[in-house]
């Protein structure tokens, strides 16, 4: 009598356990469609739409649409990479502070570049990049590692095996390295925007500690290239 109830209790507990851990899933019915935020797609005249776009429009007339999340914006100033970076900088949900830090960083970059621009001689003026968004994107691209290391256990011993990375993982690593570098290796009195703008400008020119960290990772991967056959994908 105790045994069947114990077994049933175990089964019911195991079925209930998924609700304890937070899992990222959606409560929307699968029939709900994603919202279309870009203004250009709504302003297209009817004749210019292709066949599939027409079908999509007809589908939208009958299906319900999910609510747009607050991070999705139709503004020309919104940039998904900058939003992602701001979210990673955010602490304890303080999005206001993170966003203000981000905008101060971009302003600091612009100020520094403008100063350089006005001091430079005429022939070098075209080569100075003043757009902070361009500098941000290029710096992130320069910081992305090309190959990563993953722990694979063979015969009881764990080896660091060089393995290709997905795009998301590269972007995440670049942003993470930048943020940790700016948080840890700075003087007590320097503020985050100042330090971040400095690091971004260094990364834009392929210098600086973040690029060095990327090179260290590449060197380790190159040293361990003999273990590349341990991969099975």
């Amino acid at each position: 009598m105790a045994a069947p109830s114990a077994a049933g209790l175990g089964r019911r507990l195991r079925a209930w356990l998924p609700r304890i851990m937070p899992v990222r899933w959606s409560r929307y019915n699968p029939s709900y469609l994603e919202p279309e935020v870009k203004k250009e797609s709504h302003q297209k005249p009817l004749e210019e739409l292709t066949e599939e776009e027409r079908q999509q429009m007809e589908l939208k007339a009958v299906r319900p649409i999910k609510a747009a999340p607050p991070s999705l914006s139709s503004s020309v100033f919104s940039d998904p990479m900058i939003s992602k970076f701001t979210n990673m900088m955010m602490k304890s949900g303080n999005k206001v502070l993170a966003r203000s830090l981000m905008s101060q960083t971009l302003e600091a970059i612009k100020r520094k570049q403008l100063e350089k621009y006005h001091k430079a001689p005429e022939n070098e003026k075209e080569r100075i990049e003043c757009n902070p968004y361009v500098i941000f994107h290029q710096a992130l691209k320069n910081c992305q590692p090309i190959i990563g290391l993953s722990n694979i256990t063979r015969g009881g011993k764990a080896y660091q095996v060089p393995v290709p990375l997905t795009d998301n993982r590269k972007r995440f690593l670049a942003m993470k390295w930048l943020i940790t570098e700016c948080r840890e290796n700075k003087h007590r009195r320097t503020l985050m925007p100042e330090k971040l703008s400095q690091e971004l400008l260094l990364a834009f020119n392929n210098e600086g500690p973040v690029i060095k960290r990327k090179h260290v990772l590449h060197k380790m991967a190159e040293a361990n290239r003999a273990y590349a056959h341990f991969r099975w994908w």
Partner: protein
Amino acid sequence: MAAPAYPAWVTRWVSGQWRNKKRPPTLRPPRTLALADKVANRREQSTEATCITEMSVMMACWKQNDFNDKPCAEEIRTFYDCVAKAEKERKNQNEDTLSSRGNLPSTKVNKLLKRFPQITHYV
């Protein structure tokens, strides 16, 4: 079934009783002499790592150019292409087709055999 049920005359004939040469039965099949609906579990050899040549070429280029990315852009591009191709192939490979080495793993074989079982009885 430990002792398979053959008709009595089979066992007598096999034992040599009719020829007055009684011997102990030569055949003592421990299991039914019929095909089972599953194969033994075989440890499938893992597939090889992809894109190793491109990776080694890229690393040689890095060693020559002191790990700068600018001079090695071509090699890096080929490496990325190879990785994207391997990823696409992995996604597209159908479950029921043969693996790259031309054999089917035992789990898939068992699944197929279960769908078409051996008929051992008369209806």
